[in-house]
C-alpha cells in the first residue's frame, strides 16, 4: 500500500539538526530595488510555489484526454448524499454561519461513527474539529503543533502537500522510504518509537473505508499509549466521493485538538454550513446500516475492487508491472518497460516520469501522475519510472483508457 496513506511523526527539536533560514534585508538600496524587496514573498513560502496538481491538472483539462491523473471520482456520488444537500439548500438558517469548530449535528454524527472504532467515547466538541477538507486538517495540525526547527518524519512516497506544509511551518522534514505494507506489526513499531521518543503522530486516514479483500485498516490511535499523541484525519470527499465539498475532520485528545482549533479560529473560522448539515445527514443514513452491504462504506470498496482488478489486468496484459494496491484508489506501474522515446520532450532536467506523463497526455490522450511528485528530491530517482493511475472512474472512462492502452501495446509488438 503506497500512496493510499502517508504518515507523519515528529521527533521534536534536536539542536544539531537545527537550520535557520535567514534572508537579511539589505538597507540603503534605490527605491525600485527596495520596492522589490518589500513586495517579495514571506520566507515561509520560499520555494513552495510549484505544485504538481496545478501543473498536471492544466494538462489534463483538455476534454479529449482520458484523465486517470488527479484523484477525482467521475462516478456519481450516492443519490441520498446529493438529495440531502438539495433539501438543505432551501433551509434559511442553514445558509448562515454555524459553530466554528464544527456544525453540531455533524460533530455528533462523527462522534457516533468513530466511537465504534475507538472503543471509547469521543467528545464531539473537544475531540473533533471539522476543517476545509483533509488539507485543512493537515494545515491546522502542522501550524498548531509544529514549531520552527522541529523535525518531522515523513514516510516516502507521501502525499505531496506534507513536505511544503512542514517547510512552511519552518520545520525540517526527515524522509524515510517505505519498504513494506502497513501491517499491524509495522504500525506497532511506529507506535513504539513515538512513545519512546515522546513524539506526536499525525495520521492521514482519508482512504480508511477503501480497503480490499483480505486487508484491514488499523487506526494507530487505537494502539496502547497512542490516543494521547495522535491526530487522525478523515475526509468527506473520499468517504462519499464528493471531493468538491471540501470537508474533513481531525479527531484526537482535547489537549491537542484545542491547538488545531486555535489555528482554525484565526484562519477560516468556520466551514460551509449547508455542506456540513448534508454530510451529517448522509453519515446518519450509513451509521444506521454499518453491517448492510448497501452501506456506502461497504458498497464503495466492493465497487472499486472490481475496477482495481480490471486496471491490474489491463496493465499486466500490456507488459507493465502494476503494484496491486490493498487500499485507496490508485495503482502505480513501472512504465519504463514500454521503452517510449521521449527525446523530443523539452526540459531534460525533469524526472523520467514527469516527461513520460506529459508525453503520454499529449500523444496518447491519457493522463496520469508521476510518482516522483510524491518523493523528496533525494528519492525522486528511485521512483521516476513509476506512474500513478486513478481508478475511481466510471466504466466508460476505464473503457476509453483500455482502448488507448491496448492500441499502444499493439503498436509496439
Amino acid at each position: 500500500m503506497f500512496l493510499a496513506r502517508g504518515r507523519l511523526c515528529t521527533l521534536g527539536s534536536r539542536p544539531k539538526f537545527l537550520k535557520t533560514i535567514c534572508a537579511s534585508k539589505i538597507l540603503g538600496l534605490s527605491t525600485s530595488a527596495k520596492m522589490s524587496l518589500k513586495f517579495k514573498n514571506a520566507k515561509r513560502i520560499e520555494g513552495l510555489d510549484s505544485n504538481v496538481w496545478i501543473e498536471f491538472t492544466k494538462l489534463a483539462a483538455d476534454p479529449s484526454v482520458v484523465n486517470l491523473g488527479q484523484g477525482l471520482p467521475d462516478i456519481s456520488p450516492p443519490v441520498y448524499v446529493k438529495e440531502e444537500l438539495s433539501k438543505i439548500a432551501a433551509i434559511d438558517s442553514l445558509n448562515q454561519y454555524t459553530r466554528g469548530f464544527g456544525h453540531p449535528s455533524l460533530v455528533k454524527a462523527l462522534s457516533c461513527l468513530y466511537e465504534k472504532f475507538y472503543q471509547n467515547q469521543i467528545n464531539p466538541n473537544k475531540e473533533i474539529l471539522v476543517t476545509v477538507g483533509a488539507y485543512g486538517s493537515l494545515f491546522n495540525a502542522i501550524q498548531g503543533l509544529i514549531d520552527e526547527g522541529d523535525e518531522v518524519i515523513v514516510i516516502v512516497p507521501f502525499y505531496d502537500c506534507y513536505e511544503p506544509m512542514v517547510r512552511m511551518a519552518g520545520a525540517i522534514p526527515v524522509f524515510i522510504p517505505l519498504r513494506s505494507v502497513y501491517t499491524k506489526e509495522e504500525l506497532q513499531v511506529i507506535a513504539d518509537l513515538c512513545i519512546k521518543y515522546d513524539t506526536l503522530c499525525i495520521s492521514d486516514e482519508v482512504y480508511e473505508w477503501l480497503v480490499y479483500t483480505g486487508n484491514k485498516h488499523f487506526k494507530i490511535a487505537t494502539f496502547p499509549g497512542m490516543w494521547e499523541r495522535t491526530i487522525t484525519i478523515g475526509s468527506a470527499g473520499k468517504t462519499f466521493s464528493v471531493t468538491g465539498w471540501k470537508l474533513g475532520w481531525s479527531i484526537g485528545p482535547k489537549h491537542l485538538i484545542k491547538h488545531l482549533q486555535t489555528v482554525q479560529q484565526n484562519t477560516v473560522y468556520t466551514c460551509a454550513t449547508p455542506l456540513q448539515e448534508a454530510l451529517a445527514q448522509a453519515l446518519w443514513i450509513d451509521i444506521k446500516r454499518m453491517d448492510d452491504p448497501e452501506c456506502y462504506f461497504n458498497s464503495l470498496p466492493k465497487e472499486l475492487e472490481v475496477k482495481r482488478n480490471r486496471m491490474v489486468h489491463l496493465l499486466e496484459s500490456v507488459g507493465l508491472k502494476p503494484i496491486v494496491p490493498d487500499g485507496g484508489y490508485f495503482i502505480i506501474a513501472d512504465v519504463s518497460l514500454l521503452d517510449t522515446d521521449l527525446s523530443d520532450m523539452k526540459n531534460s532536467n525533469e524526472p523520467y516520469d514527469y516527461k513520460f506523463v506529459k508525453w503520454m497526455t499529449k500523444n496518447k490522450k491519457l493522463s496520469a501522475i508521476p510518482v516522483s511528485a510524491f518523493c523528496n528530491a533525494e528519492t525522486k530517482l528511485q521512483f521516476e519510472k513509476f506512474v500513478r493511475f486513478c481508478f475511481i472512474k466510471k466504466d466508460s472512462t476505464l473503457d476509453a483508457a483500455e482502448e488507448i492502452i491496448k492500441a499502444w501495446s499493439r503498436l509496439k509488438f
Partner: protein
Amino acid sequence: MTKRLQARRLDGIDHNPWVEFVKLASEADVVNLGQGFPDFPPPDFAVEAFQHAVSGDFMLNQYTKAFVIIIEPFFDCYEPMTLMAGGRPVFVSLKPSPNQDGELDSSSSWQLDPTELASKFTSRTKALILNTPNNPLGKVFSRAELELVASLCQQHDVVCITDEVYQWLVYDGCQHVSIATLPGMWERTLTIGSAGKTFSATGWKVGWVLGPDSLLKHLRTMHQNSIFHCPTQAQAAVAQSFEREQLHFGQPSSYFVQLPQAIQRCRDHMIQSLKSVGLRPVIPQGSYFLITDISEFKSKMPNLPGAADEPYDRRFVKWMIKNKGLMAIPVSIFCSVPHQELFDHYIRFCFMKDESTLRAMDKKLQKWKDELRP
C-alpha cells in the same frame, strides 16, 4: 506528553471572543443582535443558484520583524492573524469629533489624525489593513481619507490589504470607494470581498481577493499549501448569482440596490428604538452594524458583575443578556488591549435582521424603558 505541545506561533492568540459570545447567545433566550449574520434568507435567485448547483451536474460534487498598521476599532481577527504570521501590529485609532448640537453622531465624524497616522509608518512597515465600510463602526472612508492613506502607503512602499466585504451596504447615498482604484494603488493593494455579505449567505464561506499577479501569486502559494480548494457548488452558486446581478446592475431590480434600501430602513428603525431607552447610537454610513454609547449606564451602574479587569462593555453586555433579553457585542473586543479603555463604553448591534426580530427587540426595549421610569 512531557514537552510543550503547541507551536509558539499560537502564543497569546488562543482566546477568541466569538467562541464565548456565540455560546452565550445559544444558551440564553435572547433577541440576538450580536453576531453579524442575517436572520432572513438570501435572495431567491441565490438560493436557486445554490439548489441548481447542488442538484445539477454531479461533477460539481468534485474538485479553492514586519509591522502591520491596523486601524482601530478593527474586525478582531486582524490582530491574531498578524501575530500568527510573526508580524507586529501597530494600532492607530479612529476618534470621534462629537457634535456640539446634541444630535446623534455619524460614523463619518470618527476620523484618523493625519499626523498620528503618518507617525506610525516606519521603514519596517510591511502592510496596512483597511476596512471600509468598517466593522464595528459602520464608517465609509471618503475619497479624501483614502487619498491620505494611499499617499502614505506609496511614500513608505507599503502593501494595503483592504477588507471591503460590506461594499454593497452603504446608506444615505454614500459612495463606497475602493482604494485600489486610486492612482498608484493597484500594484500594492489586495482587495477582499465576501459572498456571505454580498448575497446574505454567510454559511457558504466563499470569499475572494483581487489584486496584481505579483502579489496574488504569493496568496496562491499559501492557498495551495493550506486548504487548496474551496467548495465547488458554493462557488458555482456565487458565480451564477453574480451573472444574474450583472444583468440588473444599477437598476431598481438589482439586489445591490434593493438590499441597502431595505437594510437602511432596519438601521433607522433600530436607531429610533435604541434612543428611547437613553442609548446613543452612532449613525453608520455602511455595513450591518452600529455602535452605541453606554456612558450613561456606565455612570449610573459602574459596578456590574464580572472578572477583575474585565472591560465595562463586556460586563454590560452580559448583564443586558441576562436581565433585558437582548444580545449585542462589546466594542472593546475590536480594540487592542492597551486601548480597550477608550472604547469600553460602546456596544455593537447588528441590524441585518428580519422585521420580526426588530419587533422582538422593540418589545424588550419597551419593557426596559418601563423599568427605567421612577
